[in-house]
């Protein structure tokens, strides 16, 4: 059964990485370039086997590639970044070429919960962590 990118996730490619934001949990996730390739292909029609078939690499796939892909998809599931179950409404979207000459495991390389006030002490007056408030 395929997975699809969840509707509550916005995403953009930045440099070599793909950046996702879960709009409900307020978390940002960063995927490596390999992860970005698989993320792009998550249209509900593909699972691990379909992804493996789509890879055209200079070198043969290493042992354990499917395990690494499945682990990556599981990470996405656990982070509630993908939906499972529904059949795709449309034909699978075409995939770009794998961005690397050899297989690199897809990985979620960074995540961070974001907050309404970042790390700022603006609005916090004199209490810690603000050392100085010139208004008092």
């Amino acid at each position, binding site marked *: 059964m395929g997975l699809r990118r969840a509707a509550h996730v916005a995403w953009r490619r930045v*440099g070599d990485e793909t950046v996702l934001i879960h709009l409900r949990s307020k978390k940002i996730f960063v995927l490596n370039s390999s992860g970005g390739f698989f993320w792009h292909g998550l249209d509900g029609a593909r699972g691990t086997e379909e992804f493996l078939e789509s890879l055209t690499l200079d070198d043969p796939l290493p042992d354990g590639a499917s395990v690494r892909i499945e682990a990556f998809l599981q990470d996405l599931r656990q982070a509630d970044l993908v939906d499972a179950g529904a059949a795709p409404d449309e034909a699978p979207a075409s995939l770009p070429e794998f961005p690397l000459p050899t297989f690199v495991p897809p990985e979620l390389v960074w995540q961070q919960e974001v907050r*309404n006030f970042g790390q700022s002490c603006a609005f916090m007056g004199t209490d810690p962590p603000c050392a100085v408030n010139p208004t008092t």
Partner: protein
Amino acid sequence: MPEVAEDREVSQASFAFGEVCIKFESADRTWLSYLDRRYRNFSVASRSESFVVRFEPTSAPLPPSLLTPLAAHLEAVHCEPKASGYRVRTETSQCEIDLRSRRAILRGPSAMYPLDNVLRHLLPLLWEEGLLVHSALVADAAGSGVLACGPSGAGKSTLAKLAHGRALSDELSAVKLEERGAISLALPFWVSRPGRAHLRAILHLEHGARHRLEPLRPEDALRRLATQVLWPVWDEAAMARSFAYLTELAEKVPAFDFSFAPTEDVWDFIDKEVSWPSSPIIRR
């Protein structure tokens, strides 16, 4: 006509938070004087597009730990979506925000902290053109500027002080993207004055033994910047909008890790090392 009598006593004050103008109304003139002490430099004439916050003091006593009515008192904030806005509650205050009519009614003890608790959520929602960033903003006479980001203690205020008259703010700045590039505007926190600058770089600060500037890839710039943004966490559409701005800023504005020693030559170093991008920044 009690309502007319009440209105006659209501005073107003308007302040600019970047390009967001907020008009405060209250019969509590003491409360309005607190606003004036904090935001005086950013006082503006009321505009038709102003967002209006009406403050109605309640008889609830001030928290015992509050040193002065201007001091901080953080309370857990509960936010409930409404048809055209939000109802925001804390232990001692309540705020009804109507985004459609651009009005809010805030009720709480006569102190600044009820407003602080609302503003830290409201300002990122109202600033639809870009991001609010935990940063100092320093500009030069030609109107080009540098945003210096980092958590408390990273050196924002130190760097702003060392810029002498060039610093526009030392805690919080607004950023937006225009055709000609990224613009940053000073916000009234804390040592600040109104002003704006075309951004030529974003510096992510840390203290060091000497000045050292390391260019960042957009991917790394994004990770640094994401934690310094004030996110409009109540609103998914606003979160998506802010996310788009974040990625665009990370890609379009040169960013650096900057460790520095607090010496008088630090801005000479920055000005020499951080020049304008070789090509104009064009918004997509």
